[in-house]
């Protein structure tokens, strides 16, 4: 009898150990499921250095001694320039501007650090300013939003649920995870640079490979497992993230399909009807393939950038053209999201530049005799904006916050804001994110 009693008590104690509340560093019991605002976030870094004057202020050629006008009619409300058109105007794809479909932080600050592209991207993606040199292809010191998401979301999500898509290479592939000791590649995002992955290089070196049938994959894996069992080291130190085998196969199949469709010319272009594909830019290519990722995987967190506006260092006309095209691309992407049964009404899109550009021009004139602008950390290059667009039941519509000299929010606020939207902000240790949630945007 005593023995039976002992076993019973021991069983209860053991069960109690298993089911005891897990005490989080924050002092909470259990990992809170977290109230989400929506289940999908797309952050568009409208990057390359965007002057407030030609974007938010709709100055067009005012600072070149000519007329004003809005060349970003998908994002902002305002009339297009009526004369001196240096770009081929594309009719906006949005019926009403994105600013009217959400909350418009008209004057946001990039408060610290050099106004370099790597710094601007890093601040937006990690929620921390950085002084690191601009051309270092290194992973950031602070965790990225992808790592926060994958580590603190409950239940945990694999990397197929979060993507970083960049227009260019350089240091940008390194932004999908940090070198922070408590985070790192095991919490990183998947990454593509579509211009390479699905462009000529991808078609030449990744497409038309040996196709193995599922049975053959099984044979290959049996053999590989045997080889690996006879070797005591693992290639887990390969730089980059490592997908689990199921996700890797899924992404593999996706890549083969998209490469095939690229070769056949059947991937949809973010262009108005009748416009030649010769009008595609690097920005539009990135948006084009981001949509392929979004519609195939329905990731919960996606970050992409545009970058072609940076031609403004020497070509102001090209800057205006690229700004107009990238604006169309963002409008196109939002339309696509609203056409998808999973993403529609369950996605918030945030658009924000990496940083601004200088108030005063440099000494370069473009072919049209227009002055060019750099970004060398003057006050003007710290002026940016943010659009937070989403379902009317979740996001305040047609709300404008901030004005010149009265900024509301900083670029480092975007990471806490995304963490709030996806419901894991409270799980992040205090002190990691100096920014604030842009709560004004949400109902």
């Amino acid at each position, binding site marked *: 009898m005593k023995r039976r009693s002992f076993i019973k008590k021991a069983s209860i104690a053991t069960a109690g150990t298993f089911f005891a509340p897990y005490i989080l560093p924050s002092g909470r019991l259990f990992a809170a499921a977290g109230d989400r605002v929506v289940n999908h976030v797309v952050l568009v870094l409208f990057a390359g250095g965007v002057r407030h004057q030609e974007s938010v202020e709709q100055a067009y050629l005012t600072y070149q001694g000519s007329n004003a006008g809005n060349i970003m009619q998908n994002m902002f409300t305002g009339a297009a320039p009526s004369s001196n058109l240096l770009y081929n105007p594309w009719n906006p794809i949005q019926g009403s501007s994105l600013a009217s479909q959400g909350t418009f932080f008209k004057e946001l600050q990039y408060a610290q650090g050099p106004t370099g592209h790597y710094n601007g991207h890093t601040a937006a993606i990690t929620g921390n300013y950085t002084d690191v040199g601009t051309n270092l292809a290194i992973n950031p010191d602070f965790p990225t939003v992808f790592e926060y998401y994958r580590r603190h979301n409950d239940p945990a999500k694999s990397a197929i649920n979060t993507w970083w898509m960049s227009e260019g*290479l350089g240091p940008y592939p390194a932004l999908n995870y940090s070198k922070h000791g408590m985070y790192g590649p095991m919490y990183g995002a998947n990454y593509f640079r579509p211009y390479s992955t699905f462009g000529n290089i991808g078609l030449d070196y990744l497409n038309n*490979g040996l196709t193995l049938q599922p049975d053959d994959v099984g044979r290959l894996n049996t053999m590989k497992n045997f080889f690996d069992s006879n070797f005591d080291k693992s290639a887990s130190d390969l730089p980059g993230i490592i997908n689990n085998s199921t996700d890797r196969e899924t*992404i593999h199949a996706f890549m083969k399909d998209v490469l095939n469709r690229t070769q056949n010319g059947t991937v949809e272009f973010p262009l108005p009807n009748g416009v030649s594909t010769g009008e595609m830019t690097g920005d539009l290519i990135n948006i084009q393939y981001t949509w392929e990722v979004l519609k195939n995987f329905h990731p919960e967190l996606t970050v992409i950038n545009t970058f072609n506006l940076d031609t403004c260092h020497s070509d102001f006309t090209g800057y205006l053209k690229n700004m107009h095209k990238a604006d169309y691309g963002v409008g196109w992407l939002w339309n696509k999201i609203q056409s998808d049964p999973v993403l529609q009404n369950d996605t918030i899109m945030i658009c924000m530049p990496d940083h601004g550009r200088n108030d005063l021009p440099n000494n370069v004139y473009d072919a049209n005799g227009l002055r060019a602008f750099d970004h060398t950390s003057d006050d003007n290059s710290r002026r940016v904006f943010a659009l937070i667009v989403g379902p009317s039941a979740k996001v305040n519509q047609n709300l404008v916050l901030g004005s010149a000299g009265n900024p509301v929010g900083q670029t480092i606020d975007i990471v806490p804001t995304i963490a709030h939207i996806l419901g894991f902000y409270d799980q992040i240790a205090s002190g990691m994110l100096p920014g604030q949630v842009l709560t004004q945007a949400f109902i």
Partner: protein
Amino acid sequence: MKKFFLLGIISSTIFSSCKKEVLKQNVYDNVYYEVTPVTLYTSNAEKNKQKSSLQYISILFSDLFNQSIPGSDLNNIGEAILSIGDKGLANQMILERFLTLPGISIPTQTQMNADLNSFITSAYQRFYLRNPTEYEKIYLKNLIQNDTNITPEIVYAAFALSNEYMFY
């Protein structure tokens, strides 16, 4: 005396011919695996450094095509790898592409099955730069013999994607 002299000439011709044959065999062995001769590892425990992505691709190309990869191809493949976050997946897709390119040095299935011992030893030397252990040889031989759908491409792909091939 004349007969004895003639016999001497014939004998020396025969012996020198045999020597030439042996010499040919040695030269053939020296250049069998690589463009330049390489030393085989005595065991896989000697491998403790992981290849970089470009080293992996460069060596893979040499192992599959018996020639160095052209610089422009290496640059382009480097860009392809950089453009994909999961480097293992990138390596896999590049390997799959290599396996369909003309000029690849890979035995046919008939050649493989005709002399499995030689195929297995040759594959270990090609990819792992070592000889297989008896256990490895027997296991792999049984695996291939018991499944007629295993092709040389599958065997080569398994070698190239294995952990040991990532190290030197």
